[in-house]
Protein backbone atom coordinates (compact mmCIF):
# COMPACT_ATOMS: atom_id res chain seq x y z
CA UNK A 1 0.00 0.00 0.00
CA UNK A 2 2.87 2.39 0.65
CA UNK A 3 3.13 3.08 -3.10
CA UNK A 4 -0.11 5.00 -2.71
CA UNK A 5 0.54 6.59 0.66
CA UNK A 6 3.48 8.68 -0.49
CA UNK A 7 1.63 10.19 -3.51
CA UNK A 8 -1.39 10.94 -1.32
CA UNK A 9 0.79 12.78 1.16
CA UNK A 10 2.59 14.58 -1.67
CA UNK A 11 -0.74 15.54 -3.23
CA UNK A 12 -1.97 16.88 0.07
CA UNK A 13 1.24 18.87 0.60
CA UNK A 14 0.99 20.38 -2.90
CA UNK A 15 -2.60 21.43 -2.34
CA UNK A 16 -2.19 22.55 1.26
CA UNK A 17 0.95 24.49 0.38
CA UNK A 18 -1.06 26.38 -2.27
CA UNK A 19 1.81 25.78 -4.66
CA UNK A 20 1.64 28.66 -7.15
CA UNK A 21 3.08 26.65 -10.04
CA UNK A 22 0.63 23.85 -9.41
CA UNK A 23 -2.24 26.34 -9.31
CA UNK A 24 -1.08 27.78 -12.64
CA UNK A 25 -0.98 24.32 -14.19
CA UNK A 26 -4.42 23.38 -12.86
CA UNK A 27 -5.93 26.68 -14.03
CA UNK A 28 -4.40 26.32 -17.49
CA UNK A 29 -5.80 22.78 -17.74
CA UNK A 30 -9.24 24.04 -16.80
CA UNK A 31 -9.06 27.03 -19.11
CA UNK A 32 -7.94 25.02 -22.14
CA UNK A 33 -10.38 22.17 -21.63
CA UNK A 34 -13.34 24.40 -20.75
CA UNK A 35 -12.76 26.60 -23.79
CA UNK A 36 -12.38 23.52 -26.01
CA UNK A 37 -15.59 22.03 -24.59
CA UNK A 38 -17.45 25.29 -25.11
CA UNK A 39 -16.36 25.48 -28.75
CA UNK A 40 -17.24 21.81 -29.21
CA UNK A 41 -20.72 22.45 -27.80
CA UNK A 42 -21.33 25.48 -30.01
CA UNK A 43 -20.40 23.41 -33.07
CA UNK A 44 -21.36 19.89 -32.02
CA UNK A 45 -24.76 20.47 -30.46
CA UNK A 46 -26.40 22.01 -33.56
CA UNK A 47 -24.84 19.27 -35.69
CA UNK A 48 -26.17 16.61 -33.32
CA UNK A 49 -29.64 18.18 -33.27
CA UNK A 50 -29.80 18.43 -37.07
CA UNK A 51 -28.66 14.82 -37.40
CA UNK A 52 -31.50 13.81 -35.08
CA UNK A 53 -34.22 15.93 -36.68
CA UNK A 54 -33.10 16.45 -40.25
CA UNK A 55 -33.96 14.56 -43.41
CA UNK A 56 -31.20 14.84 -45.96
CA UNK A 57 -29.12 12.47 -48.05
CA UNK A 58 -26.05 11.17 -46.25
CA UNK A 59 -27.58 11.59 -42.82
CA UNK A 60 -27.01 7.97 -41.82
CA UNK A 61 -23.45 8.09 -43.08
CA UNK A 62 -22.83 11.20 -41.00
CA UNK A 63 -24.30 9.57 -37.90
CA UNK A 64 -21.99 6.58 -38.29
CA UNK A 65 -19.11 8.95 -38.96
CA UNK A 66 -19.67 11.01 -35.83
CA UNK A 67 -20.19 7.91 -33.69
CA UNK A 68 -16.93 6.56 -35.04
CA UNK A 69 -15.04 9.81 -34.52
CA UNK A 70 -15.91 9.64 -30.82
CA UNK A 71 -12.95 7.32 -30.59
CA UNK A 72 -10.49 9.62 -32.40
CA UNK A 73 -6.97 8.94 -31.12
CA UNK A 74 -5.68 12.14 -29.47
CA UNK A 75 -2.19 11.62 -30.93
CA UNK A 76 -3.58 11.62 -34.45
CA UNK A 77 -5.58 14.79 -33.81
CA UNK A 78 -2.47 16.33 -32.26
CA UNK A 79 -0.39 15.44 -35.27
CA UNK A 80 -2.96 16.81 -37.74
CA UNK A 81 -3.28 20.07 -35.84
CA UNK A 82 0.51 20.25 -35.54
CA UNK A 83 0.90 19.92 -39.30
CA UNK A 84 -1.82 22.53 -39.85
CA UNK A 85 -0.38 25.08 -37.44
CA UNK A 86 3.29 24.45 -38.11
CA UNK A 87 5.09 27.33 -39.82
CA UNK A 88 5.45 25.09 -42.87
CA UNK A 89 1.72 24.21 -42.70
CA UNK A 90 -1.30 25.92 -44.26
CA UNK A 91 -2.12 27.95 -41.12
CA UNK A 92 1.50 28.57 -40.19
CA UNK A 93 1.41 32.32 -40.63
CA UNK A 94 -0.69 32.77 -37.48
CA UNK A 95 2.10 31.43 -35.29
CA UNK A 96 -0.33 29.50 -33.10
CA UNK A 97 1.76 26.39 -32.57
CA UNK A 98 2.93 25.76 -28.99
CA UNK A 99 0.29 28.06 -27.52
CA UNK A 100 -2.77 27.40 -25.33
CA UNK A 101 -4.88 28.35 -28.37
CA UNK A 102 -3.38 25.46 -30.33
CA UNK A 103 -4.26 23.13 -27.47
CA UNK A 104 -7.82 24.46 -27.43
CA UNK A 105 -8.15 23.83 -31.17
CA UNK A 106 -6.85 20.28 -30.88
CA UNK A 107 -9.10 19.42 -27.94
CA UNK A 108 -12.12 21.04 -29.59
CA UNK A 109 -11.60 18.78 -32.62
CA UNK A 110 -11.30 15.80 -30.33
CA UNK A 111 -14.43 16.63 -28.35
CA UNK A 112 -16.82 17.91 -31.05
CA UNK A 113 -17.76 14.43 -32.36
CA UNK A 114 -18.44 13.26 -28.80
CA UNK A 115 -20.74 16.19 -28.11
CA UNK A 116 -22.43 15.82 -31.51
CA UNK A 117 -23.04 12.09 -31.16
CA UNK A 118 -24.36 12.31 -27.60
CA UNK A 119 -26.51 15.32 -28.50
CA UNK A 120 -27.99 13.42 -31.42
CA UNK A 121 -28.99 10.64 -29.04
CA UNK A 122 -30.66 13.01 -26.55
CA UNK A 123 -32.43 15.06 -29.23
CA UNK A 124 -33.58 11.98 -31.16
CA UNK A 125 -35.27 10.70 -28.00
CA UNK A 126 -37.18 13.91 -27.36
CA UNK A 127 -37.89 14.35 -31.09
CA UNK A 128 -39.94 11.14 -31.07
CA UNK A 129 -41.96 12.60 -28.19
CA UNK A 130 -42.34 16.18 -29.50
CA UNK A 131 -42.40 15.65 -33.23
CA UNK A 132 -46.15 15.80 -33.85
CA UNK A 133 -46.75 18.73 -31.53
CA UNK A 134 -43.91 20.78 -33.05
CA UNK A 135 -45.00 20.00 -36.59
CA UNK A 136 -48.58 20.82 -35.68
CA UNK A 137 -47.43 24.24 -34.46
CA UNK A 138 -45.67 24.73 -37.76
CA UNK A 139 -42.04 24.48 -36.61
CA UNK A 140 -39.54 23.92 -39.41
CA UNK A 141 -36.97 21.19 -38.84
CA UNK A 142 -34.31 23.78 -38.08
CA UNK A 143 -36.54 25.51 -35.58
CA UNK A 144 -37.48 22.16 -34.05
CA UNK A 145 -33.79 21.32 -33.66
CA UNK A 146 -33.19 24.61 -31.83
CA UNK A 147 -36.24 24.07 -29.61
CA UNK A 148 -35.17 20.54 -28.70
CA UNK A 149 -31.63 21.72 -27.88
CA UNK A 150 -33.03 24.31 -25.53
CA UNK A 151 -35.56 21.91 -24.07
CA UNK A 152 -32.94 19.21 -23.53
CA UNK A 153 -30.42 21.56 -21.94
CA UNK A 154 -30.24 19.61 -18.69
CA UNK A 155 -29.73 16.25 -20.36
CA UNK A 156 -27.26 17.84 -22.74
CA UNK A 157 -25.09 18.91 -19.84
CA UNK A 158 -24.09 15.24 -19.70
CA UNK A 159 -22.83 15.44 -23.28
CA UNK A 160 -20.81 18.54 -22.42
CA UNK A 161 -19.39 16.86 -19.33
CA UNK A 162 -18.41 13.76 -21.27
CA UNK A 163 -16.58 16.01 -23.72
CA UNK A 164 -14.89 17.95 -20.95
CA UNK A 165 -13.81 14.72 -19.25
CA UNK A 166 -12.23 13.53 -22.47
CA UNK A 167 -10.50 16.89 -23.03
CA UNK A 168 -9.00 17.34 -19.60
CA UNK A 169 -7.79 13.75 -19.41
CA UNK A 170 -6.04 13.53 -22.77
CA UNK A 171 -2.31 14.02 -23.11
CA UNK A 172 -1.45 12.97 -26.66
CA UNK A 173 -2.81 15.99 -28.51
CA UNK A 174 -1.80 18.77 -26.09
CA UNK A 175 1.71 17.33 -25.78
CA UNK A 176 2.28 17.60 -29.52
CA UNK A 177 0.65 20.95 -30.26
CA UNK A 178 1.44 22.59 -26.91
CA UNK A 179 4.99 21.34 -26.54
CA UNK A 180 4.69 21.09 -22.73
CA UNK A 181 6.45 24.45 -22.29
CA UNK A 182 6.99 25.27 -18.65
CA UNK A 183 4.66 28.08 -17.60
CA UNK A 184 3.08 28.43 -21.04
CA UNK A 185 1.53 25.18 -22.23
CA UNK A 186 2.20 22.79 -19.36
CA UNK A 187 -1.09 21.28 -18.19
CA UNK A 188 -1.86 18.57 -15.67
CA UNK A 189 -1.61 15.63 -18.01
CA UNK A 190 1.63 16.74 -19.65
CA UNK A 191 3.11 17.43 -16.22
CA UNK A 192 2.18 13.90 -15.18
CA UNK A 193 3.83 12.54 -18.33
CA UNK A 194 6.94 14.63 -17.65
CA UNK A 195 7.27 13.57 -14.02
CA UNK A 196 6.81 9.96 -15.09
CA UNK A 197 9.66 10.49 -17.57
CA UNK A 198 11.84 11.81 -14.80
CA UNK A 199 11.09 8.70 -12.80
CA UNK A 200 9.36 10.71 -10.08
CA UNK A 201 6.43 8.32 -9.94
CA UNK A 202 5.09 9.48 -6.54
CA UNK A 203 4.85 13.09 -7.75
CA UNK A 204 3.28 11.95 -11.03
CA UNK A 205 0.70 9.93 -9.15
CA UNK A 206 0.06 12.79 -6.72
CA UNK A 207 -0.72 15.06 -9.68
CA UNK A 208 -2.94 12.30 -11.02
CA UNK A 209 -4.92 12.30 -7.77
CA UNK A 210 -5.34 16.07 -8.01
CA UNK A 211 -6.55 15.76 -11.62
CA UNK A 212 -9.08 13.11 -10.64
CA UNK A 213 -10.28 15.24 -7.73
CA UNK A 214 -10.78 18.28 -9.94
CA UNK A 215 -12.73 16.27 -12.50
CA UNK A 216 -14.85 14.64 -9.79
CA UNK A 217 -15.60 18.01 -8.21
CA UNK A 218 -16.74 19.49 -11.52
CA UNK A 219 -18.95 16.48 -12.18
CA UNK A 220 -20.44 16.67 -8.70
CA UNK A 221 -21.32 20.36 -9.11
CA UNK A 222 -22.80 19.73 -12.55
CA UNK A 223 -24.80 16.78 -11.23
CA UNK A 224 -26.18 18.84 -8.35
CA UNK A 225 -27.10 21.72 -10.67
CA UNK A 226 -28.78 19.36 -13.08
CA UNK A 227 -30.77 17.75 -10.29
CA UNK A 228 -31.92 21.14 -9.06
CA UNK A 229 -32.84 22.25 -12.58
CA UNK A 230 -34.79 19.09 -13.27
CA UNK A 231 -36.75 19.40 -10.07
CA UNK A 232 -37.42 23.00 -10.97
CA UNK A 233 -38.46 22.48 -14.60
CA UNK A 234 -39.69 18.88 -14.67
Amino acid sequence: MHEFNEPLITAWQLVAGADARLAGIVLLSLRVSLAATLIACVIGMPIGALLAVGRFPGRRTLIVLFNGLMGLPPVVVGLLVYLLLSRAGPLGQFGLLFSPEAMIIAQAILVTPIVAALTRQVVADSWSEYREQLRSLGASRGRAAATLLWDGRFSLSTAALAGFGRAIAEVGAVMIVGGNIDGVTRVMTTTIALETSKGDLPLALALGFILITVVLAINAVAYALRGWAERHWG
Partner: protein
Amino acid sequence: MNTWLSIDGLSLTEGGTRIIADVSLTLGAQRTVVLGPNGAGKSTLLRLIHDLLHPSTGVLYWPRPLSQAMVFQRPVMLRTTALTNVIYGLKLKGFKTGEARRRAQESLARVGLEHLALRPARLLSGGEQQRVALARAWALEPELLILDEPTASLDPASSREVERIIGDIAASGARILMTTHNLGQARRIAEDIVFIDRGRIVEQTPVAQFFKLPQTPAAQSFLQEEMP
Protein backbone atom coordinates in the same frame (compact mmCIF):
# COMPACT_ATOMS: atom_id res chain seq x y z
CA MET B 1 -74.72 22.31 -44.43
CA ASN B 2 -71.64 24.27 -45.31
CA THR B 3 -68.98 21.82 -46.48
CA TRP B 4 -65.48 22.72 -45.28
CA LEU B 5 -63.68 19.50 -46.22
CA SER B 6 -64.29 16.79 -48.80
CA ILE B 7 -62.25 13.62 -48.60
CA ASP B 8 -62.12 11.36 -51.61
CA GLY B 9 -60.70 7.80 -51.71
CA LEU B 10 -58.27 8.33 -48.86
CA SER B 11 -56.01 5.36 -47.97
CA LEU B 12 -52.97 4.90 -45.81
CA THR B 13 -50.91 1.73 -45.91
CA GLU B 14 -48.01 1.25 -43.53
CA GLY B 15 -45.85 -1.84 -43.47
CA GLY B 16 -48.38 -3.74 -45.57
CA THR B 17 -51.29 -2.92 -43.23
CA ARG B 18 -54.13 -0.74 -44.43
CA ILE B 19 -54.83 1.64 -41.60
CA ILE B 20 -57.21 3.84 -43.56
CA ALA B 21 -59.04 2.13 -46.41
CA ASP B 22 -60.70 4.15 -49.15
CA VAL B 23 -62.35 6.79 -47.00
CA SER B 24 -64.64 9.28 -48.67
CA LEU B 25 -66.28 11.80 -46.43
CA THR B 26 -67.79 15.25 -46.47
CA LEU B 27 -67.45 17.38 -43.35
CA GLY B 28 -69.76 20.33 -42.91
CA ALA B 29 -70.97 20.36 -39.31
CA GLN B 30 -69.30 22.79 -36.95
CA ARG B 31 -68.72 20.05 -34.33
CA THR B 32 -67.93 16.55 -35.50
CA VAL B 33 -66.89 13.66 -33.26
CA VAL B 34 -65.25 10.56 -34.72
CA LEU B 35 -66.16 7.38 -32.86
CA GLY B 36 -65.02 3.83 -33.28
CA PRO B 37 -63.38 0.92 -31.46
CA ASN B 38 -59.70 0.85 -30.57
CA GLY B 39 -57.48 0.57 -33.61
CA ALA B 40 -60.24 1.66 -35.98
CA GLY B 41 -58.01 4.39 -37.43
CA LYS B 42 -59.58 7.43 -35.71
CA SER B 43 -56.31 9.07 -34.69
CA THR B 44 -54.76 8.29 -38.06
CA LEU B 45 -57.67 9.96 -39.84
CA LEU B 46 -57.22 13.12 -37.75
CA ARG B 47 -53.47 13.15 -38.47
CA LEU B 48 -54.11 12.81 -42.21
CA ILE B 49 -56.49 15.76 -42.05
CA HIS B 50 -53.97 17.78 -39.99
CA ASP B 51 -51.23 16.95 -42.53
CA LEU B 52 -49.05 15.15 -39.99
CA LEU B 53 -49.31 12.05 -42.20
CA HIS B 54 -49.33 11.76 -45.97
CA PRO B 55 -51.97 9.49 -47.56
CA SER B 56 -50.94 6.62 -49.81
CA THR B 57 -53.77 7.51 -52.16
CA GLY B 58 -56.70 9.88 -52.23
CA VAL B 59 -57.17 13.62 -51.87
CA LEU B 60 -58.33 16.11 -49.30
CA TYR B 61 -60.28 18.92 -50.88
CA TRP B 62 -60.57 22.13 -48.85
CA PRO B 63 -63.08 24.55 -50.40
CA ARG B 64 -61.20 27.23 -48.49
CA PRO B 65 -57.95 26.51 -46.64
CA LEU B 66 -58.58 26.61 -42.88
CA SER B 67 -56.06 27.55 -40.23
CA GLN B 68 -55.70 24.58 -37.92
CA ALA B 69 -54.47 23.64 -34.49
CA MET B 70 -54.35 20.24 -32.83
CA VAL B 71 -54.47 19.04 -29.24
CA PHE B 72 -53.12 15.58 -28.49
CA GLN B 73 -54.05 12.97 -25.93
CA ARG B 74 -50.86 13.60 -24.00
CA PRO B 75 -49.96 17.28 -23.82
CA VAL B 76 -46.37 18.03 -24.88
CA MET B 77 -44.98 20.74 -22.62
CA LEU B 78 -41.61 22.39 -23.17
CA ARG B 79 -39.38 22.77 -20.12
CA THR B 80 -40.33 26.35 -19.46
CA THR B 81 -43.27 28.24 -17.99
CA ALA B 82 -46.88 27.68 -19.01
CA LEU B 83 -46.91 31.18 -20.46
CA THR B 84 -43.81 30.62 -22.58
CA ASN B 85 -45.33 27.39 -23.91
CA VAL B 86 -48.27 29.38 -25.22
CA ILE B 87 -46.03 32.18 -26.52
CA TYR B 88 -43.95 29.57 -28.37
CA GLY B 89 -46.86 28.59 -30.61
CA LEU B 90 -47.68 32.23 -31.34
CA LYS B 91 -44.08 33.07 -32.22
CA LEU B 92 -43.98 30.19 -34.68
CA LYS B 93 -46.97 31.82 -36.38
CA GLY B 94 -44.99 35.04 -36.68
CA PHE B 95 -46.30 37.13 -33.79
CA LYS B 96 -43.94 39.69 -32.30
CA THR B 97 -42.88 39.17 -28.67
CA GLY B 98 -45.15 41.79 -27.08
CA GLU B 99 -48.24 40.81 -29.04
CA ALA B 100 -47.56 37.11 -28.47
CA ARG B 101 -47.26 37.66 -24.73
CA ARG B 102 -50.51 39.62 -24.58
CA ARG B 103 -52.41 36.98 -26.53
CA ALA B 104 -50.87 34.17 -24.50
CA GLN B 105 -51.92 35.79 -21.25
CA GLU B 106 -55.45 36.27 -22.54
CA SER B 107 -55.63 32.70 -23.71
CA LEU B 108 -54.42 31.34 -20.38
CA ALA B 109 -57.02 33.46 -18.64
CA ARG B 110 -59.73 31.95 -20.86
CA VAL B 111 -58.76 28.45 -19.72
CA GLY B 112 -58.64 29.66 -16.11
CA LEU B 113 -54.88 29.34 -15.63
CA GLU B 114 -53.64 32.93 -15.43
CA HIS B 115 -52.54 32.28 -11.85
CA LEU B 116 -50.25 29.45 -13.02
CA ALA B 117 -48.81 31.32 -16.01
CA LEU B 118 -45.31 31.56 -14.59
CA ARG B 119 -45.15 28.01 -13.22
CA PRO B 120 -42.92 25.43 -14.93
CA ALA B 121 -45.36 23.73 -17.29
CA ARG B 122 -44.06 20.22 -16.71
CA LEU B 123 -44.77 20.42 -13.00
CA LEU B 124 -48.50 21.16 -13.52
CA SER B 125 -51.07 18.37 -13.09
CA GLY B 126 -52.17 16.40 -16.17
CA GLY B 127 -55.43 18.34 -16.35
CA GLU B 128 -53.67 21.70 -16.06
CA GLN B 129 -51.16 20.71 -18.74
CA GLN B 130 -53.98 19.77 -21.09
CA ARG B 131 -55.56 23.17 -20.44
CA VAL B 132 -52.23 24.86 -21.27
CA ALA B 133 -52.22 22.84 -24.50
CA LEU B 134 -55.77 24.08 -25.21
CA ALA B 135 -54.68 27.65 -24.45
CA ARG B 136 -51.73 27.23 -26.81
CA ALA B 137 -54.06 26.03 -29.56
CA TRP B 138 -56.78 28.59 -28.84
CA ALA B 139 -54.32 31.49 -28.83
CA LEU B 140 -53.71 30.77 -32.51
CA GLU B 141 -57.43 31.38 -33.15
CA PRO B 142 -57.69 28.40 -35.48
CA GLU B 143 -60.62 28.00 -37.83
CA LEU B 144 -60.43 24.26 -37.24
CA LEU B 145 -59.42 22.70 -33.92
CA ILE B 146 -58.60 19.00 -34.03
CA LEU B 147 -58.52 17.07 -30.74
CA ASP B 148 -57.34 13.49 -30.37
CA GLU B 149 -58.90 12.01 -27.23
CA PRO B 150 -58.11 15.12 -25.21
CA THR B 151 -59.58 13.75 -21.95
CA ALA B 152 -58.49 10.10 -22.19
CA SER B 153 -55.83 10.37 -19.49
CA LEU B 154 -57.65 12.81 -17.21
CA ASP B 155 -59.75 12.43 -14.06
CA PRO B 156 -63.47 13.27 -14.28
CA ALA B 157 -63.15 16.81 -12.84
CA SER B 158 -60.37 17.73 -15.28
CA SER B 159 -62.32 16.13 -18.12
CA ARG B 160 -65.34 18.32 -17.39
CA GLU B 161 -63.13 21.42 -17.33
CA VAL B 162 -61.52 20.48 -20.66
CA GLU B 163 -64.95 19.80 -22.12
CA ARG B 164 -66.15 23.21 -20.99
CA ILE B 165 -63.16 24.85 -22.71
CA ILE B 166 -63.81 22.92 -25.94
CA GLY B 167 -67.39 24.23 -25.78
CA ASP B 168 -66.08 27.80 -25.35
CA ILE B 169 -63.70 27.42 -28.27
CA ALA B 170 -66.57 26.13 -30.43
CA ALA B 171 -68.73 29.03 -29.27
CA SER B 172 -66.01 31.45 -30.40
CA GLY B 173 -66.57 30.12 -33.94
CA ALA B 174 -63.92 27.45 -34.50
CA ARG B 175 -64.85 24.18 -36.14
CA ILE B 176 -64.25 21.18 -33.85
CA LEU B 177 -63.15 17.76 -35.05
CA MET B 178 -62.37 15.32 -32.27
CA THR B 179 -62.22 11.72 -31.16
CA THR B 180 -63.17 10.43 -27.76
CA HIS B 181 -63.97 7.23 -25.91
CA ASN B 182 -66.43 9.03 -23.70
CA LEU B 183 -69.83 8.62 -25.32
CA GLY B 184 -71.48 11.12 -22.96
CA GLN B 185 -68.90 13.66 -24.04
CA ALA B 186 -69.52 12.86 -27.70
CA ARG B 187 -73.21 13.36 -27.18
CA ARG B 188 -72.70 16.69 -25.43
CA ILE B 189 -70.22 18.11 -27.92
CA ALA B 190 -71.08 16.71 -31.36
CA GLU B 191 -73.51 17.81 -33.98
CA ASP B 192 -72.41 15.04 -36.32
CA ILE B 193 -70.97 11.62 -35.50
CA VAL B 194 -68.64 9.84 -37.90
CA PHE B 195 -68.36 6.18 -37.00
CA ILE B 196 -65.36 4.27 -38.35
CA ASP B 197 -64.28 0.66 -38.01
CA ARG B 198 -61.15 -1.08 -39.36
CA GLY B 199 -60.17 1.97 -41.36
CA ARG B 200 -63.52 2.37 -43.13
CA ILE B 201 -66.29 4.88 -42.64
CA VAL B 202 -69.29 2.94 -41.44
CA GLU B 203 -71.74 5.74 -41.01
CA GLN B 204 -72.08 9.49 -40.66
CA THR B 205 -75.18 10.61 -38.78
CA PRO B 206 -76.46 13.61 -36.78
CA VAL B 207 -75.74 12.99 -33.12
CA ALA B 208 -79.31 12.54 -31.84
CA GLN B 209 -80.07 9.99 -34.47
CA PHE B 210 -76.81 8.10 -33.90
CA PHE B 211 -77.47 7.52 -30.24
CA LYS B 212 -81.15 6.73 -30.71
CA LEU B 213 -80.94 4.59 -33.80
CA PRO B 214 -77.56 3.74 -35.30
CA GLN B 215 -77.84 2.88 -38.97
CA THR B 216 -75.46 -0.08 -39.03
CA PRO B 217 -74.99 -3.29 -37.02
CA ALA B 218 -71.37 -2.38 -36.28
CA ALA B 219 -72.38 0.90 -34.66
CA GLN B 220 -75.17 -0.82 -32.81
CA SER B 221 -72.87 -3.38 -31.26
CA PHE B 222 -70.28 -0.65 -30.49
CA LEU B 223 -72.88 1.34 -28.58
CA GLN B 224 -74.03 -1.78 -26.72
CA GLU B 225 -70.48 -2.56 -25.62
CA GLU B 226 -69.55 0.98 -24.67
CA MET B 227 -72.74 1.98 -22.89
CA PRO B 228 -73.12 0.57 -19.42
